[in-house]
């Protein structure tokens, strides 16, 4: 009995002595017992610089627009966040992104868009991790999966800027809305994905929710019921040997409320109350030549139809209401080749091929077939840095003057440097 006790004491004493010896070591290894550094999300930063040479002045360039598609900007301190807008050097944007698994049920992804003097939350959304039967839900603020290019971030684009048709219908920031998305992937041999989105519909280029009224209260249009925008799409893909074919159809329907100085109490103004449908078809064909070389054709066609009323208010506060019908369409087609381990080159053609705007019974006399031609050459030292030389010849822009529209074609050279650091997720096809 005694012997047992002695033995026990000896063991305990040895253990405690060893434990004391170990103590400082384990402490320094583990750090604070409440340390959570292992849970730091994936963080990355992307910075985009450019040098631009253009054959028109900065002042003229900032006033250019596509009649019938984009508006000329009035003096009202319009936030011109355009990329590559100045001749010489530009700091286009910084992008800070966060990604992490939240818990067994959700992932969170967030992107901060950072400019020199301000920052904003570009995207912030959760996605579900394990819904059954091939479903996934996304909720928050995100770039809509309408069409092929809209959901892609700028740094992933094959050219310095988005195609004309995307800018015309969704603005430079794209269709980026608060809402929710449900996708379903079919359990088939080929890829088939169906998706639907319910969005707020605040996009200024095609939708908008805020109501408007004139000062005398003759016209009083209430804000639209929110959410206001419904998007649906189907995408499918198949391979023929080493050729990948990916195609999709998208549809967006929403109310349009635009107030261009109509509710103000000075000058003249216009406002639109309408219903808008946008249809899109996209096709990508990629031929994988070998382990290094491939060539990819990509095209997207979009058709927009806006139907409703246009309100005009003149300086004497008389209001005129007319029916408004806009049927507009455009597309881009591009061919991009991977020429070597570090080289890519591509060409793109942009065209707005339909611009029928009928106010009342009068067809507006807008210029037809605005187009743009682009070519680029990329040098990629690693997947984290990219140098791109792009040439654009733009025949789509006009200057609004008191004497009417003046055609302003221009040519620009853009030398763009895009850098990524940190833990940046891989990109999809």
């Amino acid at each position, binding site marked *: 009995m005694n012997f047992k006790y002695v033995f026990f004491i000896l063991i305990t004493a040895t253990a405690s002595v060893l434990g004391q010896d170990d103590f400082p070591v384990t402490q320094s290894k583990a750090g604070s017992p409440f340390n959570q550094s292992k849970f730091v999300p994936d963080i990355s930063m992307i910075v985009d610089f450019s040098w631009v040479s253009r054959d028109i002045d900065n002042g003229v360039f900032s006033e250019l627009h596509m009649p019938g598609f984009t508006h000329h900007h009035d003096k009202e301190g319009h936030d011109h966040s355009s990329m590559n807008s100045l001749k010489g050097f530009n700091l286009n944007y910084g992008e800070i992104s966060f990604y992490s698994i939240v818990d067994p049920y959700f992932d969170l992804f967030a992107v901060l868009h950072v400019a020199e003097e301000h920052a904003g939350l570009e995207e912030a959304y959760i996605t579900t991790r394990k819904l059954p039967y091939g479903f996934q839900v996304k909720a928050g603020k995100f770039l809509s999966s309408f069409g092929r290019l809209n959901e892609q971030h700028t740094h992933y684009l094959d050219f310095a800027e988005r195609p004309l048709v995307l800018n015309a219908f969704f603005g430079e920031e794209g269709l980026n809305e608060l809402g929710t998305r449900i*996708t379903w992937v079919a359990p088939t041999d080929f*890829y088939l994905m169906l998706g639907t989105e319910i969005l707020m519909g605040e996009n200024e280029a095609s939708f908008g929710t805020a109501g408007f009224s004139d000062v005398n209260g003759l016209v009083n249009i209430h804000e639209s019921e929110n959410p206001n925008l419904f998007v649906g799409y189907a995408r499918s*893909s198949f391979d023929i040997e080493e050729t990948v074919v990916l195609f999709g159809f998208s549809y967006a329907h929403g109310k349009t409320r635009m107030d261009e100085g109509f509710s103000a109490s000075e000058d003249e103004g216009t406002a639109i109350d309408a219903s808008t449908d946008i249809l899109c078809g996209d096709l990508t064909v990629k031929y994988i030549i070998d*382990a290094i070389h491939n060539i990819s054709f990509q095209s997207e066609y979009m058709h927009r139809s806006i139907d409703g009323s246009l309100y005009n208010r003149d300086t004497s506060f008389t209001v005129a209401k007319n029916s408004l019908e806009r049927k507009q369409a455009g597309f881009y087609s591009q061919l991009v080749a991977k020429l070597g*381990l570090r080289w890519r080159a591509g060409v793109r053609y942009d065209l707005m091929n339909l611009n029928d705007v009928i106010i009342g019974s009068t067809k507006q006399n807008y210029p037809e077939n605005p187009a743009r031609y682009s070519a680029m050459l990329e040098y990629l030292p690693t997947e984290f840095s990219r140098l791109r030389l792009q040439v654009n010849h733009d025949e789509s822009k006009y200057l609004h003057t008191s004497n009417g529209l003046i055609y302003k074609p221009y040519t620009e050279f853009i030398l763009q440097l895009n850098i990524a650091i940190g833990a940046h997720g891989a990109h999809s096809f």
Partner: protein
Amino acid sequence: MRILCFVLTCILYTQVVFSERLQVVTTYPYIADITEKIGGERVRVIPLARGDYNPHVIIPKPSYIAKLRRADLLIINGAQLEIGWLPPILKQANNGNVQPGERGFLDLSTYMHLIDVPTSVSREQGDVHPEGNPHFCMNPDNILLIAKAITDKLCEIDPESKSLYQTNYTEFEKIWGQKTKEWEEKMNPMKGVKVIEYHKNYDYFLQKYGLIIAGTIEPLPGIPPTSRHIGEVEKLIESEKIRCILQDVYNPKDASEYLSKKLNIKMIIFPQDIGAVKEAEGIISLFDEMVRRITQ
């Protein structure tokens, strides 16, 4: 409505037809072959990447999403070899069963002892893998560990066929043991021989058989050779007795060819996976072919 009915019928049909066997998706062909050897008739194995492409930079075809959507089990190499292409398509597959951490997900690297684990990580060192060299399947001893991990996983998710998987594993272990001895004998004279490789693809193979890696054609992992670095390799070949240059099938061969011609040193096209060269049809013939090519 009729079309919709037809589509739904087709979908249900394909589900019924394919649900009989366990659907296993593997990222690379070598994993697929081992899985087939263990799973036998009970599994339908679909590899995603091709063995003759660079395993780091696979183009994530949307058709891979369809394959992942129906998978009961996804087996990956891990150690960040798939980090540049798998995560987005796995996310888009909307299949909760095969997401990391779930029962239908197997990361082989977690069963491995990785070499070249960097003490500090910076992209200044090129395309480094923080967890260590991910090309562990080049050591034949690791293949057995991989087969064991796959067997355990198959038994876990499909316990009904447990005895089949275990029998197949025992069978594979026996054959592999014999082959390992055979390769050991053939590789024995190669001990201490110095070689140069293009990328750090074959370190596990070379270390296993006691060969010495004198250098790489790439100045840093993932960075194409520069003329300055090639100059250094030239000096190395001139000053030391280097037997050969091991060139993979997917990277440009010009630098290795240049050195081979100029300094009269053998350049060997060396496979790193099944399908990289036509003789490497399965996991056994892959090692047969590696041993044959290097000892030639």
